[in-house]
């Protein structure tokens, strides 16, 4: 029977199948960070259990990391305790950890692919919803809760409820200045934050094939914002070229065998998806959010919508509430919305290509008066690469702050936060109320829009400069 890629990867990982029970799936890679793991390790200790496969587990420090003075002790005592707890747990249970100060430290979803640990056809989990990022390689990767983290630590498996399949096909070619971020924001605006619930999305079509690995990661990263369990893209030459030569990539005959297998994972031509969504890349333009969920977005050249125009009562009420929180009036052109802060970073847009794109826009220009721009690389390797290319200097010369690697202002668990009432243009993934700091207001944007916005002080694209 014809099968989709997601179904093939799932089938390959079934450890046990029995009537009336969820499939028990084997997990190839378990990524761990400090926030969602302490209670899981504590659970193991209380039950007298160990980590079954520490060699398939890796940990890094990211959410609490202060992006200034990364080598000093963390000032926030509670954050410090959480980091220290991860270090103790990693040592006690034999899990490899990349702590602050290590060249391989960074956001967990940047570190995995960078090391070559993320490969096609794998099952990958992490106690973090943006685990969907790894699906860009054709891996089945999903975010899990702390109970499941404990379950994977103890058994290297997870019982998983069946999923449905959705194809999101993006035809045509992107116009200059339009990026992967704009594709995914447009997809979410179209299907809504609940549109993907219960589905694994496969992104396909000409426009997706043309994307780099890093751009594909940006797309899969935000699958969760459409409510999906995971997002995937079929592995191809772009994928193989990215993986080859990385520290954990297969070599020699193993490489050839791996590639042959990876190529077999593609969705069969006659496979049927449970749902299909089609977009035309040629019609997309830079996209920004105006509300407090990622589905509340519009093209940058549009205006703040009027809630009265929403047919659905629930959506109308949500829009009214969002505009009140965001302090926006219907009809205001989005390009006139003034920001206080620009955040460039996160597991969505904190990789080297994102920094390059933003640096190209900002080179020789200045961050507007009254605007603070934070540039936070996704990992220390990304920072190293950016410095080697002179990008760090471009950002600092423009008046931006060039920081150390971590999750930073995406969720403000460290000191990088918005103050109440402050407004940001942010390359991160969530514009929820208070996400970037209590009372803060977030507009999600691409790295290009972030850079242009920093220069002009209002939501802008490079074409406006």
């Amino acid at each position, binding site marked *: 029977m014809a099968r989709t890629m997601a179904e093939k990867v799932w089938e390959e990982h079934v450890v046990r199948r029995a009537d009336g029970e969820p499939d028990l799936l084997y997990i190839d890679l378990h990524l761990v960070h400090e926030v969602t793991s302490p*209670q899981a390790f504590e659970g193991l200790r209380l039950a007298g259990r160990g980590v079954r496969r520490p060699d398939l587990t890796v940990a890094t420090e990211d959410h609490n990391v202060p992006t200034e003075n990364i080598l000093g002790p963390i000032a926030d005592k509670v954050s410090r305790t959480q980091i220290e707890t991860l270090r103790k747990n990693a040592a006690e249970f034999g899990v490899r950890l990349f702590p602050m100060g290590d060249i391989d430290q960074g956001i967990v979803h940047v570190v995995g692919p960078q090391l070559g640990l993320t490969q096609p056809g794998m099952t990958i989990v992490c106690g973090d919803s943006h685990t969907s990022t790894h699906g860009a390689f054709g891996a089945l990767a999903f975010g899990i809760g702390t109970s499941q983290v404990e379950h994977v630590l103890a058994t290297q498996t997870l*019982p998983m409820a069946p999923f449905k399949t959705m194809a999101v096909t993006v035809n045509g070619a992107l116009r200059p200045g339009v990026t992967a971020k704009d594709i995914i924001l447009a997809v979410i605006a179209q299907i809504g934050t609940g549109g993907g619930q219960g589905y694994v999305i496969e992104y396909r079509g000409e426009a997706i094939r043309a994307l780099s690995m890093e751009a594909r990661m940006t797309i899969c990263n935000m699958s969760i914002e459409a409510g999906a369990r995971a997002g995937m893209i079929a592995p191809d030459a772009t994928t193989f070229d990215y993986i080859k030569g990385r520290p954990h990539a297969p070599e020699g005959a193993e490489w050839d065998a791996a590639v042959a297998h990876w190529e077999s994972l593609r969705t069969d031509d006659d496979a049927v998806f449970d749902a299909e969504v089609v977009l035309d890349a040629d019609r997309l333009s830079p996209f920004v959010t105006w509300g407090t969920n990622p589905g509340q977005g519009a093209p940058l050249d549009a205006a703040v919508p009027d809630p009265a125009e929403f047919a659905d009562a629930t959506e109308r009420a949500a829009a009214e509430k969002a505009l009140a929180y965001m302090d926006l009036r219907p009809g205001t052109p989005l390009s006139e919305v003034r920001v206080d802060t620009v955040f460039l970073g996160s597991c969505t847009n904190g990789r080297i290509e994102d920094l390059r794109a933003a640096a190209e826009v900002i080179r020789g220009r200045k961050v507007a008066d009254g605007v603070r721009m934070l540039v936070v690389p996704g990992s220390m390797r990304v920072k190293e690469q950016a410095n080697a290319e002179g990008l760090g200097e471009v950002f600092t010369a423009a008046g931006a702050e060039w920081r150390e690697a971590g999750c930073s202002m995406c969720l403000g668990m460290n000191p990088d936060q918005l103050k109440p009432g402050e407004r940001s243009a942010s390359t991160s993934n969530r514009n929820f109320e208070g996400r970037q700091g209590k009372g803060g207001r977030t507009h999600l944007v691409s790295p290009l829009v972030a850079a242009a916005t920093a220069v002009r002080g209002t939501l802008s694209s490079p074409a406006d400069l």
Partner: protein
Amino acid sequence: MEKFTVHTGRAVPLRASNVDTDQIIPAVYLKRVARTGFEDGLFAAWRANDPDFVLNKPEYSGGSVLVAGPDFGTGSSREHAVWALQDYGFKAVLAPRFGDIFRGNSLKGGLLTVLLPQEVIERLWALSEADPATEITVDLVEREVRAPGVTEPFELDDYTRWRLMEGLDDIALTLRRTDDIDAYEQRRKSWLPVTR
């Protein structure tokens, strides 16, 4: 995990859609390493800033059945959202749609999340807004929600229902299958990466 069979408690109407887990518990509360005591973080921003927020109304105090709008629990995977609801005293959440990860977490941890049609949620909102003392019964045995004038069946797969009713720990169940896991590991591809 505590067993769940039938629970009857005061309804708390939360008229909002897209209540993401950042609203259920803001990130600042996630720095803790303990497993209990998250009730102070539940809906912290709304409780602090909005006097009209439902949990700030004394007539709903002691409520244990939250009735919410669509897409409750979207966003971050933080299981702290489930812990905060439970620590505050909630035993069940009723909504037309849930974020997938939140739903999975809730059913692992014994917080019963029940899918009901929007129209039923609207009726339950109307009931508990008209009379804040309104109680809702969530009956897992019969897979049914009952309130004055409302009897509505709900779906939950047999396996999850059994696990909740028995209060069973998933890990203990899986550890009975160690032979299957050992056998699977024998046939894994040799090129798959290790983290060492």
